[in-house]
């Protein structure tokens, strides 16, 4: 006790370090999932931060529009062109009413639940981004009140974003796919017979391998989820940046860059 009285600053620092370490260890042990206390604190913080965020997001978007005016005009032209092409494709791909009825009968007979039936979607805004700038986790302004649950899949217009790992009434925390250590089964868009598994994540890039070592894949190929495992089928994962045959494991390994630009994300959709 006398030592503590004589070394107040050191004792205080040791106490703070111990408290912080205990908090960190318990947080890591629960995989970052919120407990009732942290949920309550988080909810209070979100109540304060939400209106601030709503105002500043509007200002930020306007500023960004002004700064990137030329880019937006070019993007607009490109989108118009793409829209025309998509309209043509849509016209070709539209099912006749007979074909549609046949397919509906088939799904009923097989009791098939695709993404459209098994997953309702709810869209929200990103209200805060990670403080660790190299990681890509963020908080969204929709939560269990909107039907969001832990483990729900999060997507954006560009593709698969990640999963919800913590949720409360009006907010949910999302961990990006590139920061998770989970395996994702994929198919190559355009050739659905080429299947592979993404198994490791380094520096924001995904790497995996093709199940068929003779599979013909090349740089630029688009990867989509195969539907095996937790991810529904057809979600865009990313594009192949490198293909290499590993003679030791006799596997064709691929490195993939996510199609989602995490630094520019503002809205995401949760499949609930």
């Amino acid at each position, binding site marked *: 006790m006398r030592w503590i009285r004589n070394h107040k600053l050191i004792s205080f620092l040791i106490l703070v370090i111990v408290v*912080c370490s205990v*908090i960190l260890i318990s947080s890591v042990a629960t995989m*970052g999932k919120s407990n009732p206390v942290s949920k309550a604190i988080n909810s209070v913080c979100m109540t304060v*931060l939400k209106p*601030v965020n709503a105002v*500043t997001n509007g200002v*930020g978007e306007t500023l960004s529009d002004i700064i990137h005016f030329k880019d937006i005009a070019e993007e607009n032209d490109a989108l118009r062109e793409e829209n025309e092409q998509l309209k043509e494709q849509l016209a070709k791909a539209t099912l006749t009413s007979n074909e549609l009825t046949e397919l509906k009968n088939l799904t009923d007979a097989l009791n098939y639940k695709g993404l459209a039936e098994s997953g309702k979607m709810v869209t929200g805004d990103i209200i805060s981004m990670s403080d660790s700038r*190299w*990681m890509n986790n963020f908080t969204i302004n929709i939560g269990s009140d909107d039907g969001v649950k832990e483990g729900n899949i999060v997507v954006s217009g560009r593709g698969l974003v990640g999963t919800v790992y913590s949720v409360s009434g009006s907010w949910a925390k999302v961990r990006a796919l590139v920061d998770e250590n989970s395996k994702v089964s994929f198919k190559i868009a355009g050739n659905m017979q080429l299947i592979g598994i993404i198994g490791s994540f380094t520096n*924001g890039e995904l790497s995996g391998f093709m199940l068929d070592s003779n599979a013909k894949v090349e740089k630029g190929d688009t990867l989509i989820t195969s539907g095996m495992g937790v991810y529904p089928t057809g979600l865009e994962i990313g594009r192949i940046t490198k293909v290499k045959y590993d003679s030791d494991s006799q596997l064709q390994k691929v490195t993939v860059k996510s199609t989602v630009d995490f630094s520019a994300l503002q809205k995401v959709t949760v499949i609930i």
Partner: protein
Amino acid sequence: MNRLGLAGAYLIAFILKPVMDGILPGHAGNGNLILCLTTVLIFLFDDYVPIITIGTVFAILDDLVYGIYCGPEAISTLVVCLAIIAIKYFFNNENYLNALIVIAVSTWLEYTVEWGIYCATGATYTYGYVIKIILLNVIVNTIVGMIVYAVMYSRIRKKKYEKLYR
């Protein structure tokens, strides 16, 4: 030091974070106001206990709201505080160049410790990749920190001057 004022300053820094994130889209280069405030206050003042207490509480809040785990930012802020207390024995704190070096080094140290903690918890980012990303943060934080330092230092000088010639 007025503790209520100190808590108020941290609260403003905490609320201003989404403002900076919203106004400067693309979160890679936004400043960490809580870190800037802690660095400058520890460097300028000798009353460490309230600064470390309130700074750590707000770092934990920051972790709760923005982080995956609760604690990495709080621990890295503590390490930064200890480093600055040690540095103060060798550096004159009433000097803009010294302040600039301390703020830049503090930012680098904060993110390096944070990266170490995340690596220990299973993150797969190499230090080479992280250093490229935090370089911009070091620059932004140094600019923001120098503004905070200039404001605080001018107030201290004014108070000293008033005490001397009262």
